[in-house]
């Protein structure tokens, strides 16, 4: 898939995993653009749901990076959230009107 192409990764129904029922639908802003999200879900999940796969770029090679471990260890999903840098998107929870930015290569 080309970078920038957006295909929703949100799973509405799953055979085994219980659906995420909580959370009203809110809007958050990613690099200034509004996306739909559910309050209280991880930011990484909201991004994934909106088809955004790239959370940052590797500092040396500039390769695109995305959520990898989903449990707060790998730091591949570090983004700037409401002005705070290096926030792990898989650990930060969605709040209405949240501003999420893809960091520059300097992090």
């Amino acid at each position, binding site marked *: 898939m080309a970078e920038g192409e957006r295909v929703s990764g949100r799973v509405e129904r799953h055979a085994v995993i219980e659906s995420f029922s909580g959370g009203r639908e809110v809007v958050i802003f990613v690099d200034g653009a509004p996306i739909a999200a559910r309050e209280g879900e991880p930011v990484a999940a909201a991004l994934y749901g909106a088809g955004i796969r790239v959370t940052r770029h*590797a*500092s*040396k*090679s500039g*390769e695109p*990076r995305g959520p*990898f*471990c989903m449990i*707060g*260890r*790998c*730091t*591949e999903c*570090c983004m700037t959230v409401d002005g705070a840098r*290096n926030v*792990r998107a898989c650990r930060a929870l969605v709040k209405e009107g949240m501003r999420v930015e893809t960091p520059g290569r300097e*992090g």
Partner: protein
Amino acid sequence: MRVNECESMQGAGGDPWSSAWERAARGPVAVVDCREEIPCNPCEEACARGAIKVGEDICASPRFDPGLCDGCGRCVTLCPGMAVFLLDRSHGKGVARVTVPYEMGGELLEGGEAWAMDEDGNALGTAEIVKVKRTGGRTGTLLVTVEVPEGWALKVRGVRDRLISLEAPEETDAEQRERDYHLCRCEEINVSDVRGQAGWFNSLRALRRYSRAGLGYCQGRFCQDLLRRELAQTLHAGEGEVGAFKVRPPVRPVKLGRLGGEDA
């Protein structure tokens, strides 16, 4: 000890190397190129004519008398180090026939071509296979006779299947992917970085200082185990031998405000 340095070898010409060379003009003769001085003497047992002597000191280099050798090739088959070959210069016209043991895969057929290899494993060129003899031993050793230019006569130490490319095999996609796999994702250190640099250090902490592997965002949480496994494998060491990163608090990301008493 090289054959041509071996003073104890007695032959018609005095110099054992040249006496074997002269003897080879009349038909096949063994050339014992044994240099290791290791405890080993199957060659002595192999020779029914008593042309090869190791003697009481089993570590001694074999002494060889070309005058007693009838070129039967039994010593070529039985030397575990493949240090004996047969030389035959009786076919004239600037060619020599060299008989070497062959214990590798591939098919060598009489009338076909083989790579003639020197003692460093480099190909001298191609040579015609004039004879392939199955020796029926436990190792399935073949005695392969190739015809080569006389100039190669004392250089050939082995043969290889002509159909097997001497080029290094091309890297497969899977090997390429493995080599490019990031062990340290933050600092972008991949498998080939660790393999290529491992000669410079012997511990995980030295690897970290040298390459920055483990010094990125994740502070080693993600990469340490992967780096340890790869470094240990590369150094042929146990995972316990390459050590661990020194761990200092905080062991996971904590906002300074939290440490200062601010609510989450």
